[in-house]
């Protein structure tokens, strides 16, 4: 991998730019990046299955995009995991989808099992949820032990490989990795055990159990963030938090069931002086008043369907707002349309800082962006997005 000539200088500029925006100030220009996921396959001429089974191809694809677009950070692998870590334990849903990381909504516990989950959540997850979700682990010893061993080995190799690769990108391309750690808010963790549909019904039929289950999972949710996150000296990276289930709840249900443990999780992350990157799918306007209470200047809020101007007005003093060029436009629109949208966006959102340009969604399929449109908008933002003092 050839080193970019001024990689060190580039890194300093990019990190400062991202930090300044996150701290709700005006950097030298609006930062830009695109969250490339399985879109990278068609971009490089691979199939999705190729990149999830041969990780070197995945890495090559990311590096091609780094070199071509020179955004301010690299999204990283996102949800594109090596398929082996799932295959080994019998979770074939990832490979079967062949298109993106999609998990079918299934319930792996009954409402009668809530007391067990609440009493000792990790043990319950390991002993009950894991083998129900991963068929190989439900088989007898030694088959299940070997399956877990194979999967964990693939996982360990993946993590050490990606650690080295990300450090390499930092040095050679002067580009920081935007997402380093991750976690799920407690309510979402309960949804992975109970199924989303099941949990939503439980909020009606067993509200107290739902509340207790969220509280029980809070330490696990926090631990997940702390253990997965790596702070890179000289870099800028965040803990990825997708509060997926929140928008399915009315604001009063959100306040009752979702907010208490979600806010405690976010406080724990920010108390450690980490930054968080929240993926806010759907329309978050009904929950603005809650978001405005989160720790200031440490969180990037990635908007998918929320009105950007309204977000800036209400929560722009609390968190950095990222978004929201529509993939529909990037994939089906003309260069002119994309530039016009972006110009408008920068006019509305850039003043005062605390703003990052990206797409409204993760780029998971071929039709999520035309490469020419990405080039055009990147060039445009690097010129038009400069903060003139």
């Amino acid at each position, binding site marked *: 991998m050839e080193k970019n000539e001024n990689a060190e200088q580039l890194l300093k500029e990019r990190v400062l730019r991202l930090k300044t925006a996150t701290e709700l100030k005006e950097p030298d220009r609006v930062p830009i990046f695109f969250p490339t996921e399985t879109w990278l396959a068609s971009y490089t001429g691979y199939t999705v299955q190729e990149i999830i089974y041969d990780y070197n191809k995945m890495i090559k694809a990311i590096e091609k995009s780094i070199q071509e677009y020179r955004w301010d950070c690299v999204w990283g692998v996102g949800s594109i995991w090596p398929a082996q870590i799932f295959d080994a334990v019998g979770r074939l849903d990832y490979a079967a989808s062949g298109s993106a990381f999609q998990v079918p909504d299934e319930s792996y516990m009954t409402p009668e099992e809530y007391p067990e989950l609440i009493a000792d959540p990790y043990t319950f997850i390991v002993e009950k949820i894991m083998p129900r979700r991963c068929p190989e682990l439900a088989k007898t010893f030694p088959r299940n032990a070997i399956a877990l061993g194979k999967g964990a080995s693939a996982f360990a190799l993946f993590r050490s490989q990606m650690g080295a690769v990300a450090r390499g990108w930092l040095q050679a391309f002067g580009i920081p990795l935007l997402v380093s750690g991750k976690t799920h808010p407690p309510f979402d963790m309960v949804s*992975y055990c109970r199924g989303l549909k099941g949990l939503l019904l439980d909020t009606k039929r067993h509200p107290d159990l739902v509340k207790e289950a969220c509280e029980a999972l809070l330490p696990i949710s926090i631990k997940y963030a702390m253990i*997965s996150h790596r702070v890179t000296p000289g870099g800028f990276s965040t803990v990825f938090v997708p509060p997926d289930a929140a928008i399915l709840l009315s604001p009063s249900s959100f306040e009752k069931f979702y907010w208490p443990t979600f806010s405690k999780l976010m406080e724990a992350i920010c108390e450690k002086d980490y930054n968080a990157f929240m993926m806010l799918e759907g329309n978050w306007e009904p929950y603005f008043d809650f978001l405005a209470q989160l720790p200031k200047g440490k969180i990037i809020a990635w908007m998918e369907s929320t009105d950007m101007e309204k977000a800036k007005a209400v929560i722009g003093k609390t968190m950095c707002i990222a978004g929201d060029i529509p993939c529909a436009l990037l994939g089906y629109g003309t260069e002119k349309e994309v530039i016009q949208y972006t110009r408008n966006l920068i006019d509305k959102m850039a003043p005062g800082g605390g703003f990052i340009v990206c797409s409204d969604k993760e780029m998971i399929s071929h039709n999520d962006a035309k490469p020419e449109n990405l080039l055009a908008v990147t060039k445009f933002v690097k010129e038009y997005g400069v903060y003139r003092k």
Partner: protein
Amino acid sequence: MADTKNMLYVPWAEKRKEIEIAFDNEEQTAKAWDRGEDLMFLYIMTIALM
């Protein structure tokens, strides 16, 4: 609220009760017992929950 210590699947404190060997360096042994715990935690989070 669950104690975070419970998240080590068999914490060293519990294991210690089973083992009647005297170790030269108790702290080192405890650390070695917990090695890989973080990786397994992350892996279990990935395959059991996501």
